[in-house]
């Protein structure tokens, strides 16, 4: 029940429709050829000044970061190419694989399908923000993955770890089947799903014992 509610909230806030509306409102179009980032010389100063503010403050991993963001820039691109947070991976660019999953106010979201402007005023958490900033201690999910020897190539790991982090908040005591549903937005091409589920179950167990 809880899960359903949070999905409902999500649809309101971050549906594909809002994403597209956001792009249209800021006067840009989504290019089919690539991702858009940096202060592109293509968009002369006049263009963006009339559209929207570019220098914005983002709350990422508990820190406020000032960053120059184009109106149509995706969060994954901002994180990777402006903030140096390359733990968030780009596997498909188009919401098909989940390698770019991050948390927005604790909810798992695809970083490739969020406009950076949409997350102003929200708390963004990436895989780099899971360790305790003071002690360097791993999060329970990371600890569980370490104990279970999780992942093979691990390109999908940051995304799965963020989805697991959201999962144990939403459903602290999942069955393996429920965990599979919670992680079904993430693709592992090594198909190490059995071990990933074992990691997720161990993470939930560790979280309950904290």
């Amino acid at each position, binding site marked *: 029940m809880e899960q359903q509610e949070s999905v409902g909230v999500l649809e309101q806030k971050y549906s594909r429709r809002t994403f597209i509306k956001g792009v249209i409102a800021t006067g840009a179009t989504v*290019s089919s*050829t*690539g991702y*858009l*980032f*940096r*202060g*592109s*010389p*293509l968009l002369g100063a006049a263009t963006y000044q009339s559209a929207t503010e570019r220098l914005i403050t983002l709350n990422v991993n508990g820190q406020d970061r000032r960053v120059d963001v*184009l109106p149509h820039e995706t969060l994954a691109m901002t994180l990777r190419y402006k903030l140096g947070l*390359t*733990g*968030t*991976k*780009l*596997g*498909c*660019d*188009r919401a*098909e*694989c989940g*390698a770019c999953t991050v948390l927005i106010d604790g909810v798992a979201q695809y970083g490739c399908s969020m406009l950076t402007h949409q997350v102003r005023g929200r708390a963004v958490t*990436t*895989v*780099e923000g899971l360790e305790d900033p003071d002690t360097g201690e*791993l999060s329970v999910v*990371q600890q569980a*993955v*370490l*104990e*279970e*020897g*999780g*992942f*093979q*190539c*691990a*390109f*999908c*790991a*940051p995304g799965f*770890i963020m989805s697991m982090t959201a999962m144990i908040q939403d459903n602290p005591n999942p069955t*393996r089947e429920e965990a*599979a*549903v919670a*992680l*079904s937005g*993430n*693709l*592992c*091409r*090594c*198909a*190490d*799903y*059995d*071990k*990933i*589920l074992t990691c997720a179950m161990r993470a939930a167990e560790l979280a309950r014992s904290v």
Partner: protein
Amino acid sequence: MAEKLVGTDIAPPDLRAKITGRAKYAEDFRAPGMVFAKLLLSPMPHARVRRVDASRALAMPGVIDILRADEVPAREGPREACLTDNPRYEGEPILAVAAVDEETAAAAIEEIEIDFEPLPFVLDPLDSLRPGGPNPYVEGNQFSGQDGWSEFKWTAADFEAIDAGLMPDPECPVEWTKGDPESAFAESALVLEEAIVHQSLTHHPMEPRSNMAYWEGDRLFAFVSTQSSQQTKFALAGALDMDPENITFVSEYCGGGFGSKIAGTTIMQVPALFSRKIGRPVMLRVTRYEENYIGRARPGFQSWLKMGFLEDGKCNAIDLIIVQESGPYGAGDYNTAGMIADLTYTPQNMRFRAVPMYTNTPPKAAQRGPGGAQIISMVEPILEKAGRELGIDRLEMHRINAPRSDVRFGPRDTSLTSVHAVEALEQGAELFDWASKVQLSGQRNGSKVTGVGIGLSPYTAGSRGRDGMMIIRPDGKLYVHQGIGNLGTHSIADTARPAAELLGYDWDDVVIVWGDSSRGYPRSTVQAGSQTTTAHTRANRAAAEDALRKIRAVAASAMGGSPGAYRVDNGRVSGPGGTMTLGRIAERAIAMGGEYDGHVLPGDIHEQTVPAAQMLAGQGLMGIARDNFGGEGSIYSWVAGFALVELDEETGVVELKEYVGVTDCGTVIHPRSLGSQIFGGSIQGMGMAMTQRWVFDPKWGVPFANRLYTARPPGILDVPPDLKWGAVDIPDPQDPIGAKGIGEPPVGAGAAALTCAVADAMGGRCVCRTPLTPDILLAEIEGRDRGFGRLDQHIG
């Protein structure tokens, strides 16, 4: 005693970096002044570039330069260049543009005016074999280094047979025969004949083949996504015609390859060449869309198989013809397919014919279990069908036909080091409870029908003769230098375990050195064909034996007595003269110099190892050696897969309910990782057999299924939440460690267990085609016209 390292679960040392985001894959590296390249891809499957006008693009603010095909190494014949003015598949890179950001580069690509002359193209190899059919190249459809291009066609009579649904008797450039198939078929109690189509499909590793490069003077710094490290550095040097010692090659992590990034990628040349041209670091971020085209694909088959069986179920003859879709640059795994058919069914009488055909579809390359996965997934249902017709239990059919260690197979009578396929079958049958599960075959639950199936899949699993290199430094730790890549198999760490165990090391005191060539690589295998586990447990063991000999000699020289009387354990060496730490031994080895600290090297190590060893000389006690352990015969591993499915006759959807995979891969080094390999490979095989499909528009020659969602690999909900695996765990007798590789064989096992289970759910009917998508199964169940020919490739 130090802890036991072989056969235990130890998380690889790089796991912490992988789960905190610190692990750097190729696209995670940055360099000052880095710019971004974007590719212009061919919109046609075969064309010639007549004219390019980049003036508008080059005038755009932020655009730096363009890289054209005439600026990159060109290769004669059907061989791939990283950029071309003669594209031979839709999506082939024509040129690249560099700009200050990716958006500008992408926009500049759109501003380039380019005039293509469209040329005839071939998607389906049979079209090109037909008399008067089109050719994939202007010059023809067959190429030999000696004679150049020619045209090869089958006869009208061959196609009369094919079109009538019969097995043709065509001329093929590849042919071998053993025994007397014709007489053997005459003696068979049952002869089955099938036409088979196995699709091509893209590898789609999670990490696209992005890469970055820059130069400092004559030195190239390359950051590459690749399965192998040391070998890829030499491949890049070869492609660019430069001294490998002038490349600093970095490949710390690879987000999967599955055969598509063995010795790097063709596209890795673009940032290297472009950055040399413009004097700035160049990042080429490859998108998923681009990866679909340039990311390699498994070669497809169109095939005819005739299989004869004696009354007792023994296969006594095989006649196999494979037409292979080899793509524009000619990769082929048909020979392996023929070998594996002979190995797995031991017919004693076999004729094999093959014709590899160039096509104007994305380039092909080995994909996990190349050749073997295709043939096993196609032939296993036919073996099970024979069992049904002869009234023999299907498990028994596999057992009767599986080889033992004394097997000889293929045209050159290849022998193997060890075979425990029957043990794997028996252990699998027990874990799966075959005896009970087979009773569920055909059971109905509403519209759902249960089916069970078995897939037995072998593959090559090792090679010999590589170099190992390790150093015990004065800090007492063991530094194992690995030239193999870090593609997710955990082999960078696991292949060092037997060596560390021999030297009595605790795992915490072992440091794996890998990824960056400036840290020193020994000559290594390419990471393909499941070679690494065998090749590098052996090479590291050889180097550890060398280190042990030197430790004892140094100890004896320091403390007296004979070297052989000294023992190592827990970081110390002890003997008649007393005890020393290995850190002190390392210091003393440096003082002694010569062979002890690597200033004098063994004469038989590979020339590619020498510069790295010379660089590391003097840093501690060096163990360095070539693997001279020897061995007779090829090394093969096996997986027996067992699947239970439910086929919904109303929707055509197949749900996998249970799966068991049991392997014969010799000594188990890392159980948990082995389980991941068995499941991961098996599930990849299931994707190949069931969900991922390649569809082309026959009119324009362009692929429709060009993203993950249109050629969907299995997700977490496609596999049952509980799977089981096992290992026979019998050491290979011809190996000092006894371990064989495991990467390849599970793919065929998973695919075949599923194709057999689906056939079982359909009452034993073989569709003889992959992928078994719901629409294809529904047409088959309902007996409708399928809307495509029995041998058509790439159908929607």
